[in-house]
């Protein structure tokens, strides 16, 4: 599957899960801010991606999860510099450049973009071949 096919399938998946038009699913679109996703939608998206791409997405691999329970990485509702480093290391597809200026944990989900999903899938599918 080439990159264009992956993006097209992601568009279809997100449009179905979030009830938005395919044209709105642009690479730079934030799942929460632009496409209106809530936490229940993240689960729906993961399950749909698993089905549509025939893969298993382990917990915390696509969207960060366990990092957020670690006191080293989150303090007083903010992600620590160590946490930012951990996010960069464990989630290379997640762009935390602007997030690091005001790393409020509640705003982290705004950084989850369509591009992040596409890049994750490109690497996962490349390994599968």
């Amino acid at each position, binding site marked *: 599957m080439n990159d264009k096919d992956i993006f097209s399938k992601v568009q279809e998946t997100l449009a179905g899960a979030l009830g938005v038009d395919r044209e709105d699913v642009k690479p730079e679109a934030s799942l929460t801010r632009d496409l209106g996703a809530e*936490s229940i939608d993240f689960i*729906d998206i993961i399950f749909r991606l698993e089905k549509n791409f025939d893969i298993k997405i382990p*917990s915390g691999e696509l969207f960060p999860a366990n990092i957020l329970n670690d006191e080293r990485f989150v303090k007083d509702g903010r992600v620590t510099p160590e946490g930012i480093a951990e996010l960069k290391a464990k989630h290379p597809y997640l762009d935390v450049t602007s997030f690091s200026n005001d790393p409020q944990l509640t705003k982290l989900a705004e950084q989850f973009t369509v591009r992040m999903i596409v890049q994750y899938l490109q690497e996962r599918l490349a390994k599968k071949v």
Partner: protein
Amino acid sequence: MVAHKRNLDGLFSDKAGGILRFPGGRVRGIGIDLVSCRRMAAFLKRHREKFSGRLLTKSERVLWQRKKYAVEWFAKFFAAKEAFFKTGNNAWMGVDGFRAIEILPMRNNHFSVRAAARFNGRGAKSYGRFFGTQKWIGAFVVICK
């Protein structure tokens, strides 16, 4: 405005009009969540196997089975878990995070939460209450220590 106030009152009082009593100790966190039953029904129709297997613990699944797989009960578990996550300011804890905590329903729509210390701190206890209508199911959780 009056109706809104009544709804809010409903969050904190049981059917007999008594105030929900939490165990003593300092409140460490409060979380609340609301789920659309229609939306949950659509999700269950699509992902039933994965949803129940990956989001509910074994005893929750047994209880859900006893409730004849009612959408309302799944929505209750989901809302309660989401509300619990929010007590710690962690709105997203991953798919497996849902199975790492257990909702223990009690009488009068009350419930307690069993969770590892890493979630709510050592010695902390979490309690909550379901509320809602036919269209919406909600839950709120308080963590005390």
